[in-house]
């Protein structure tokens, strides 16, 4: 009987510890993949839900982007200038939806995700499901004809300047 009590006590302790270690919130994205072209913006939303029975006093959601290609450097600030959202308190069972707008700045394969943390820095970091993002290369501007323009306008002005100076010299 005494052994049984000890085992039950151990099981209860482990269960309590695992419960406190488990994330009290979940975060889900409304999409799992997106294909776009470089320079274009895309939108998605995240839903943060308090899974616990107690309110979460201060929840922060943060957007991040990871490149799956080691040769592609990602500066997330270029993709979105509004990456951190302070969601405030979440009551027990309450969910909050947040809209995100991201501009694809690099081409390649990326994972976009939202991480949720407690604003006091306690507890664990909860990450959303990944948003697999494929960004195709795109040349928006037809560069044909740029050289004649880039040389022509200053050329015409330079000729005008030479003529004006020559005329001025002849008058003197």
């Amino acid at each position: 009987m005494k052994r049984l009590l000890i085992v039950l006590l151990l099981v209860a302790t482990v269960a309590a510890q695992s419960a406190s270690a488990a994330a009290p919130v979940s975060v889900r994205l409304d999409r799992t993949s997106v294909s776009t072209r470089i320079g274009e913006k895309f939108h998605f939303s995240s839903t943060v839900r308090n899974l616990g029975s107690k309110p979460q006093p201060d929840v922060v959601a943060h957007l991040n982007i990871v490149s799956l290609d080691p040769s592609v450097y990602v500066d997330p600030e270029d993709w979105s200038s509004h990456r951190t959202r302070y969601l405030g308190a979440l009551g027990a069972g309450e969910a909050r939806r947040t809209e995100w707008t991201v501009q694809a700045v690099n081409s390649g394969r990326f994972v976009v995700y939202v991480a949720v943390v407690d604003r006091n820095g306690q507890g664990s970091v909860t990450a959303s499901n990944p948003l697999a993002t494929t960004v195709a290369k795109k040349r928006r501007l037809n560069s044909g004809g740029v050289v004649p323009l880039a040389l022509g306008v200053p050329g015409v002005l330079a000729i005008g300047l030479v003529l004006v100076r020559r005329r001025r010299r002849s008058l003197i």
Partner: protein
Amino acid sequence: MTTFEHAAPRTAAPAWLVVTGQELHDLWAAGRALTMTLAFSLLLSITTYLVATNQALNFLEQREAVNLTLQIGVAVGSLIVLLGAADALSGERERGTLESLLLTPAPRRELVIGKGLAALSLWLGAFVVLVPYVWFIGRGINIAGVALLSGFAIGTLLAVFVAGLGLLISALAGSNRMSLSISLFVLLAFYAPNQMPTGAQHGWAGDLLLRIDPYSSALHYLGKIVVDGYSAGQDATWLLSPVIAAVVAVAGALIFGGKVSLRAGERP
């Protein structure tokens, strides 16, 4: 440099018009304005070439590429106006020609108006140069017309502001070097808020700074029209600061420029 050697026979023309004509002749026929316009076109050529061919810049959505070129054109175009206006009175003082100018029958405020209008012609010249570049980048998406129209309106507003500012500083400065230095410093200060990191532009303080700064607010408004397709009346409150700045700068130039006089030791 304005001289009134032939002003008397053309008596029908008001003094400010005579001054404007003479200043325009000095600026354009002497090649000073053309030199600045040539430098401006070289800058636009480099920008346009990079936007069109460089992989790192070419990702820009076409509207954003138009906006980038337009903003550079408007900002540097008004810098040229500032250089012209900042030289207007202090330059005459330094070249020893202010006395003869002040002895003419033209009221001093009309001298200031004439010199201001001549300085504004530099913006018109810069805008004419800007047109083919904006057309080239914006072709195919029907945005060049809107971009050029809004760029001309915003650029003219900023040009009036910096012309007034340059004349005001030129009237108060002791030397031409001082006038040009202060003018460039002030202009750089106006450019600064627009160059702040994106994060710093958020929040009420960043927003307020952008709205107070005539340059940042005008360029922000221009970006909204060109990139986001806003109508002219939408978010027009962003124009409040440049309009107020233009009125204050021109009024200051007329008040202080109207009192410009020789200082001790300036008589040749």
